[in-house]
């Protein structure tokens, strides 16, 4: 049994209104996640691959969902991962975090914990030192949403 809380009802309503008002990307633009990605890549297309995104398939508690990623890269001065942006496409706001690596990092890996308001996709986009972009996407089913009041 799942009840829709007032907050969720408002946010769903708000998203629909926003999508209707803007009239673009009605499919999954529940928030600004696509805008964040577009800004990050300066509009370039991110290829799928090179990123391993580790997330639970089902998160019982959306307040603290463990997330790890690793990216194939030699991490040398000539070839390394510069930045990784993490977004969630159905949180009140899309941004989660941006990770800035250096060749001294040794490996392009990091872990943290994030809030997920509801079942949604988590997307990681990486910028390589040669200016190319890679992405990975994983869906997480959320039983009890985070971000609630």
């Amino acid at each position, binding site marked *: 049994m799942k009840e829709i809380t007032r907050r969720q009802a408002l946010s769903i309503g708000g998203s629909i209104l926003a999508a209707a008002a803007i009239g673009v990307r009605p499919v999954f633009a529940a928030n600004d996640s696509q805008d964040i990605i577009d800004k990050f890549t300066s509009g370039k297309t991110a290829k799928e691959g090179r990123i391993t995104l580790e997330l639970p398939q089902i998160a019982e508690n959306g307040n603290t969902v463990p997330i790890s990623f690793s990216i194939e890269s030699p*991490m040398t001065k000539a070839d390394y991962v510069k930045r990784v942006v993490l977004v969630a496409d159905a949180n009140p706001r899309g941004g989660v*975090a941006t990770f800035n690596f250096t060749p001294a990092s040794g490996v392009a890996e990091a872990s*943290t914990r994030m809030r997920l308001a509801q079942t949604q996709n988590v997307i990681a986009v990486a910028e390589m030192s040669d200016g190319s972009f890679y992405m990975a996407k994983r869906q997480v089913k959320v039983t009890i949403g985070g971000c609630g*009041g």
Partner: protein
Amino acid sequence: MASVKPRVKVPASAKKGEVIEIKTLISHKMETGQRKDKKTGKPIPRRIINKFVATFNGETVFSMDLEPAVSANPYIKFNMRAEKSGEFEFTWVDDNGSSYKAKKKLAVN
């Protein structure tokens, strides 16, 4: 928030060229700015750790920009290739302008 306490786990020593793991945790509510006070109905202002920086011997090795979607008591794990002995300095920046610091030494042999 009574006190904000950073905690860091770094190996005391490493072999030259070894990639070491650094784990950090800081006690912080990460107030999203989306919540309302249940009694007054007024929005609770956002107050989060918005930036984390790790330097080694003064050079940045890793940094992270955090949004309200990072969980309370932010946990961050990352790596560094150990090339020489030195000292880490970790800095967390709060929305309210304060910053919290921690230092750790690393011996490379």
